[in-house]
């Protein structure tokens, strides 16, 4: 049977629409982030209650380089630039992030200073998930907190593996360059 041949039942359809769970923009954005992607909608709702939704104007800093890191950010809508401050030079843009992208997740585990600055490029709505929020979840919902921590560890492990591969490549390149130099 073709789709067009389907009989519509207005009463049933409206009832089905009403029963369909309504997801907020924040919930959808959270579900698309690796760290929260394995959580159930109920758990995502708990995370949503813990996070902070902030609005930034174009050019407004989200955090500055050197600020103590205190959490991660998830972009619901808008655009954010990651900049590296170089002394006596204009800040160098490292990347441009859009909706559903996230940044600063290492700060959830470590309070060391931010290595780069984040600035809103256009009007942006951003979710802030900070260490105190994670600690609070760990204290009141330990099972959910553990799930988030495991997912965060997985993200960091994947990144570490990638860095190791890059390091090995660079070492090999360096070795070959040194051998070539010795031959010369």
């Amino acid at each position, binding site marked *: 049977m073709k789709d067009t041949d389907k009989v519509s039942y207005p009463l049933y359809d409206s009832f089905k629409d009403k029963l369909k769970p309504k997801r907020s923009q924040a919930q959808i954005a959270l579900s698309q982030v690796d760290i929260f992607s394995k959580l159930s909608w109920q758990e995502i709702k708990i995370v949503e*209650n813990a996070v*902070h939704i*902030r609005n*930034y104007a174009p050019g*407004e*800093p*989200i*955090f*500055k380089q*050197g*600020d*103590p890191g*205190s*959490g991660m950010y998830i972009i619901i809508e808008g655009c954010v630039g990651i900049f590296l401050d170089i002394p006596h030079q204009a800040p160098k843009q490292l990347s441009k992030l859009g909706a559903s992208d996230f940044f600063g997740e290492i700060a959830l585990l470590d309070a060391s200073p931010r290595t780069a600055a984040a600035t809103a490029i256009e009007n942006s709505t951003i979710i*802030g998930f*900070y*260490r*105190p929020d994670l*600690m*609070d979840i760990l*204290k*009141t*919902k*330990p099972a959910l907190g553990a799930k988030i921590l495991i997912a965060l560890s997985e993200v960091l492990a994947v990144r570490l593996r990638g860095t190791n591969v890059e390091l090995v490549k660079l070492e090999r390149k360096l070795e070959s360059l040194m051998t070539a130099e010795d031959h010369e």
Partner: protein
Amino acid sequence: MSNSDPVQIAPQSLRLFHQSLFKTLVYFFLLILVLAGAYKAIPLVIDALFLIVIAAIMTAVFNPTVDRMESSGIRRSYGTMLVFGGIFTVVGMGIVKGIPALLNEVGRIKDVIQQNAATDSLDSIMTDINLKIAQYVPGFQLDPDLISSMSAQFFGQLGSILAGALDTVATIMFILIITMFFLIDGKRMTKSLIGMVPNQYFEMSLNITYKTKKQLTNFLKGQLLAALGVAIQSIIGLNLLNWIFDANISGVVLIGSIAGMANMIPFIGPFMGMVPAIIVSLFNNLGDPVAATNFYYIIHIIVMFLIVQLIDNNVISPIVVSGSMEMHPLTVILLILIGSQIGVLGMFLAVPAWGISKVIIQEVYQGLKGHHLI
């Protein structure tokens, strides 16, 4: 007609001047109204703030228990109800069983003091004490009316505290209701309040709030545990003195509780805790001919409290009290002097209040410094 025409400009600027004058006057009257309202409202606001601060302190004390219940799957609201059920049970049992016994004991001691004051027994005690002191420190004499004046003052204040406590049942109920709301919805309230902070200071404010809350909870938990420790040790110690040396100290639970509470005041508190025990034993042993000639039971009490302090300072406090509360003795004396302007309660609250303010100031300063704002 051009704008530069002086005939036209003059009335326009006059109208503008009138408009701005009218606006200024309106703002001025509004400001006076606001100031007058604020002046009238300040006492009300201070009263409300006092209730909120006490409720916040109580929330900091009970929040870890509610959090623990929530982590084991009990809903936050049910956890709060359970905690309040526990509080009401303990307080209710205390009122039903403890208050009549406590009032009896206070009344009995007061009667003993009044009777002995009337029969000049106090004078004979002071003469004996002064004779003993003269053996060791020649020329040093205590004021003969010292005990009677001190005890009258002490029991007078104790009576007023009890009477005041009974009068403020409604206030206590208000505080409990606010605490209940803070425990159930405190996180949402804090989130809404922090949500109002501008983006520039948001991360910093969140960190400061979190750290201050954590430090405050640790500080209060530590203080209460240390006080409880001292109270229990004092009760055991006083019972041991009664049992081994027949020290004849009555109202042991009351004296132990006072010693526990007084322990929250550094340096001076432990001595304040000793005083009621010494006074009670002194008056309970008035008719005893052996006790009248030597005062070893007072030395026993002092030694017992010193042992309690030794255990508290070296075992309990290092474990339960946060190290951030180090204070200079002079600061403590000044704080107690300032607190004494409000009364006995002020003396008790001055040091913990300063401790809490110190934690908040430290966290705000470190937060501002960390974010390069100062």
